[in-house]
């Protein structure tokens, strides 16, 4: 039962997958679990679809947990997904979003890596795929997308944490999303959630060229981080990836934008400057609550500005 689930604690992959089944069972008219692929080690890659009907409606993509050790991101994802389900019909703005758009939420984007952080190495970041000719395992799934693939900010060394992989979309965790989104064909927003630098960024990461939508994305990012800060005072920086953090090629947000999804963003959730990836569980709810306000700003904007 998702009402009795402890949202203020970190959970194993098994618990999260079980929670997904519960959410689907409790909100059968709104939530459907879809398996869009399998991980390298054969785990299902699950997405929660929130839909009130209609076929191939414009859609919003959310994902968390692509870097395994960023536990706060799936924890925030779980809370947010429950919020979507429980607020539909109660919160007028969210209800209006779901009456015109579908939301797809991939809570654990890197299930093998997440499992590995619980069983073997809490600090693991990458996928768990084997690299031929190397004893080092895994690819950075946020360098593996077909968006400036192999450009600045990636490593060709399989032992590096930013190893890009042998070719674009080599990771089934990435390819599954690519195939799903391109197959769907009507995504209007794509938000990928990382931690822990307190940033909200839009494309590009692989080039310093500004996107044609720079002004709109910048204004939207500002309104999102303002909304976020209003709750607990958490200060985010915002801007294009390359100017705000560093050059990074082959990223999710750039791929989304280059494939026609204008409202493409990447979050870096809160950091107290003390814990990094080991954010205490007591901060899960405040993190999720403030993030939700920013997510809503972006989703509302996508709803109100069809293209």
């Amino acid at each position: 039962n998702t009402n009795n689930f402890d949202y203020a604690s970190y959970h194993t992959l098994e618990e999260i997958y079980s929670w997904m089944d519960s959410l689907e069972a409790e909100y059968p008219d709104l939530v459907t679990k879809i398996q869009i692929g399998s991980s390298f080690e054969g785990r299902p890659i699950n997405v929660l679809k929130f839909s009130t009907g209609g076929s191939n409606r414009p859609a919003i993509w959310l994902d968390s947990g692509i870097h395994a050790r960023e536990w706060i991101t799936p924890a925030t994802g779980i809370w947010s997904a429950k919020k979507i389900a429980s607020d539909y019909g109660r919160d007028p703005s969210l209800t209006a979003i779901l009456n015109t758009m579908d939301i797809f939420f991939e809570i654990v984007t890197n299930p093998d890596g997440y499992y590995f952080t619980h069983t073997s190495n809490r600090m693991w970041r990458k996928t768990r795929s084997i690299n031929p000719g190397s004893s080092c395992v895994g690819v950075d799934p946020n360098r593996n997308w077909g968006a400036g693939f192999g450009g600045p900010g990636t490593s060709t060394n399989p032992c590096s944490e930013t190893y890009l992989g042998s070719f674009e979309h080599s990771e089934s965790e990435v390819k599954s999303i690519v195939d799903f989104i391109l197959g769907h064909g009507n995504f209007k927003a794509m938000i990928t959630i990382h931690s822990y630098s307190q940033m909200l960024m839009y494309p590009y990461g692989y080039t310093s060229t500004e996107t044609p939508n720079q002004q709109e994305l910048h204004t939207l990012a500002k309104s999102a981080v303002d909304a976020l800060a209003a709750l607990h005072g958490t200060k985010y920086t915002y801007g294009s990836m390359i100017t705000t953090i560093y050059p990074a090629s082959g990223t999710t947000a750039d791929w989304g934008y280059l494939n026609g999804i204008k409202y493409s963003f990447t979050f870096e959730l809160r950091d107290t400057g003390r814990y990094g990836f080991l954010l205490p569980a007591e901060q899960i709810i405040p993190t999720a609550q403030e993030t939700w306000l920013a997510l809503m700003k972006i989703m509302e904007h996508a709803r109100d500005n069809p293209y």
Partner: protein
Amino acid sequence: QKLFVGDQVLRITASSEEQITLLKELQDLEHLKLDFWREPVKTALAVDVRVPFAGLQALKVFLESNGIQYRVMIDDVQMLLDEEKEEMFRSHDRER
């Protein structure tokens, strides 16, 4: 289960491009087994790096001898992991 006893996370603040370059060179020294949580990019952004216990002294000497400022962000990674694990066990035991 990999243990991180005595590993620290350092928050490094570079004050010049030269120092950024020195930090970038550290990334190539695989024997130190440094885990960059935030990579050296520009002076405005702090660098966070998890340092295995065995390499702590060497890295701190390197930073201090090059005048690069740092502070210990996490004193013992394993202690935090133990707390995290305890918290998860407590959560399991809690009555739903």
